[in-house]
């Protein structure tokens, strides 16, 4: 029953009680009428008073992984000198329910506190599932009360509790990827090489610096010079990766979490994670509404940068994938492996294949993840199967690309480790 209707009904009852009381020379009808009036007054005024002098705080993590359950701790403090009852805490949590639909910005009820003593505090925990990656602005946390009779609802929004939550894409483990080594990159300095991805050759000696591997200390020279000296190596070949994401609007098919972009981002994040764990160089390129360019790098910080970027990107671009691939082809390193995430409409396959041919001509290796577009369309709606996917697959095979086909609902861990 809506609040207005409740109020009207009680108001009518009150008027009826007063008219009955004035018609009868009795006290009880007056008392009943007074109680109705008291209920109206209490129901209308009390909620407004209840949410005054209350402070609320919500503490929780600022970063989380997709699929992880984060726990927010909510605390209500009563700074008044009278107790507060049935205080509802509402919050704007756009990531709740984001997996099925677009992030909705409706207020969510965190919970209600039945009783907060004067000058006291009450706290409770709210476990929430991080359904979909993204950068979310949480809050502000608001207070509401319709105590005691639900005749009126008072709401108060404070500026406190405005925070952000970055949900990173869910990463799956990759044990092995068929990558090829790139030629020497001596100017990048010595680093540990991925197993089987190349070799290193002695290039010289230098003084020991903090953090150097003690195994590389050259003891005879150190003894002679009375100073620790370490050997330097030149990597002859190492794998390096370029992740090319297609952020064109029409290349993203599906809804909520089950769309090609989400799959592509999961794959990109996992491959970047693999590269960083293997100490390989990786970079990310994409053309959305704003271009995404993460320069080649490695290490945890680089991986964090990639994850930060992948957490927020959306399929909001107009640039055809072929154009991005052409750019990559022009500045790619010979032997670099380009991770292709292909979900674009079939009509653009020809241009894409041309760009890939250019890439191959520049000496890049291709690792193609081809999305089965049909499987990502809404279940139940009839869709004409893509006629153009066959030439793309054939073209990729011709170019010597390593291909992985991804369908909606596929287990990516199995797919990439089989």
């Amino acid at each position, binding site marked *: 029953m809506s609040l207005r209707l409740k109020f009207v009904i009680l108001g009518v009852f009150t008027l009826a009680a007063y008219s009955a009381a004035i*018609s009868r020379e009795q006290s009880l009808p007056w*008392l009943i009428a007074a109680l109705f009036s008291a209920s109206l007054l209490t129901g209308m005024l009390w909620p407004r008073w209840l949410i005054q002098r209350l402070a609320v705080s919500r503490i929780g993590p600022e970063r989380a992984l997709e699929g992880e359950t984060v726990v927010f701790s*909510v605390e209500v403090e009563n700074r008044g000198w009278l107790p507060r*009852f*049935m205080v509802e805490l509402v919050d704007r*949590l756009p990531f709740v329910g984001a997996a099925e639909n677009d992030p909705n910005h409706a207020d969510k009820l965190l919970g*209600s506190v039945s009783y907060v003593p004067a000058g006291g505090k009450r706290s*409770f925990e709210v476990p929430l599932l991080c359904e979909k990656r993204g950068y979310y602005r949480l809050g502000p946390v608001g207070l509401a009360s319709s105590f*005691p009779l639900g005749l009126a609802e008072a709401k108060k929004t404070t500026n406190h509790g405005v925070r952000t939550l970055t949900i990173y894409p869910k990463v799956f483990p990759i044990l092995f990827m068929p990558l090829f080594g790139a030629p020497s990159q001596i100017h990048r300095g010595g680093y540990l090489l991925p197993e089987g991805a190349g070799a290193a050759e002695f290039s010289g000696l230098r003084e020991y610096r903090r953090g150097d591997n003690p195994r590389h200390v050259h003891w005879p020279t150190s003894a002679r010079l009375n100073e620790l000296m370490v050997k330097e190596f030149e990597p002859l070949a190492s794998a390096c990766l370029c992740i090319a994401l297609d952020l064109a609007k029409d290349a993203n098919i599906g809804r909520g979490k089950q769309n090609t972009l989400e799959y592509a981002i999961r794959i990109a994040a996992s491959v970047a994670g693999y590269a960083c764990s293997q100490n390989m160089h990786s970079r990310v390129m994409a053309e959305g509404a704003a271009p995404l360019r993460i320069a080649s790098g490695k290490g945890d910080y680089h991986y964090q940068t990639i994850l930060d970027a992948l957490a927020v990107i959306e399929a909001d671009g107009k640039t055809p994938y072929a154009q991005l691939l052409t750019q990559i082809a022009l500045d790619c390193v010979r032997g670099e492996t380009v991770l292709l995430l292909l979900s674009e409409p079939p009509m653009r396959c020809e241009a894409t294949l041309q760009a890939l041919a250019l890439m191959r001509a520049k000496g890049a290796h291709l690792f193609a993840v081809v999305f089965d577009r049909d499987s990502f369309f809404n279940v139940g709606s009839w869709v004409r199967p893509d006629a153009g996917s066959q030439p793309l697959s054939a073209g990729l095979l011709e170019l010597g690309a390593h291909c992985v086909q991804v369908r909606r609902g596929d287990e990516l861990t199995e797919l990439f480790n089989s």
Partner: protein
Amino acid sequence: MTQAPLGFSVYLGLFASLMLALACNAFLDIQYGSFPREMIFWTVIIGWTMLIGWRQNRKPTASGKAWQKGVLFFGLFLFFFVFLRIWDMPRAGLYLLVMLQASYNCVTTGRRELNLGLLVSLALVLFATSHYRADWTMLFYLAPYVVALVFTLVAEQIQRRGDDLRRQSLGRPSNQGQGVAILAATASILLVGGGLYKLTPQVSWPYLEWQYGQISPRNPGGELEQQGSTGQNGADKQVDVAGGGQNQAQGSGDSGPELPGSSWPTPAEMRAAAKRPNMPGWQAKAIEQLADVSESVQQTLQPVVVAVIDLWEALKQWLKEHWLAALLGMLALLLLIILVAFGVLLREVPWIAWLLMQWDYLRLGVLARHADGERGAVQYYRAMARLFALQDVPRSEATNTREYLSQIGRRHRDLHKNAAEITWLFEQARYGAKPPSKDSIGRMRQLYRDLYRRL
């Protein structure tokens, strides 16, 4: 939305409401000595049927419906063979209503049934208070009934709302304190209701008609059962009515009809009521104690009341003699309030603020006419705030010094250093262990002058 089950406290409240409503009716027969027997009978009937209703969860079960029918037939049997013989109509009809409610109790599992039960209890109470045998002694059952009624309604509402919120909540906060919330809400409604009841002029149509010179009927209808009815009624003399209610207009002469609730029994009347035959012992004892308390309060308050009346009369006399002075005094006070309000508003006018700022600079910056110690620091800090207020950084009352400093820093990064030092010196003066030295105040003046020039 699913229907929430009624809590135990709600059933308890409904049981109490029905039993107290029945007690009001049974109390009408107090002189015949049947009050305890009636109460035991109704306790068993209402208690048992309520237990059946409570043991079902949300939805009436087959056994509940079977009990409902059984109680209904039992009630009809009692109506025809017992109630009609003892009380006749309309009391017998009323008790039939109670039996119908008892049968309905067997399937009372939701809010609708609860409200109907409370409505029936209200009907019972209205009947009892309308009866010509009802008098102020019924308040011993009527007052707890009102409390039980409000408690039940509030408890149901709060428990249902609590259940709804728990269902919709993302978290799982503790339910602790709901009982306190119910009691607080009940108490507040009763207190406000009691206050309104006392404040409301309880007029009636006959009273209003008499007041405006109309011919008004005396003792208008409304009683469901009048003197001389058959059954357990006899020809007893009416003492008073519920809550000092109706029929008090009889014999009131030229004063017109009295308002309901306008009289309270004297200690002697109370003691007489306590000695009535078949009055329950606890009630008689309570009435005696009430009479003692009432008497002692009257004795204690008598001089105070006399003094207050004297003062009031003296005030009226003084006003009569000095009405012009009083009127002029009130007008002067009103003018003063308007002037103060105008002064406060005037400070917001930009050119007035500019003038005040210039005055500050002349007084503090140029002539150094500042106070000593903490007051001086406060003067310089306020002067700085006025300076920045003209530069679109006003300080609101809720903003503390640190927040204000950060606001200044955002708008005037180049002046942040000066503002920070003045703020620090002000904080030291205001909250520090020692009063500010002359050097500190001098430094504040220097910083203030610098700020003035740069702004």
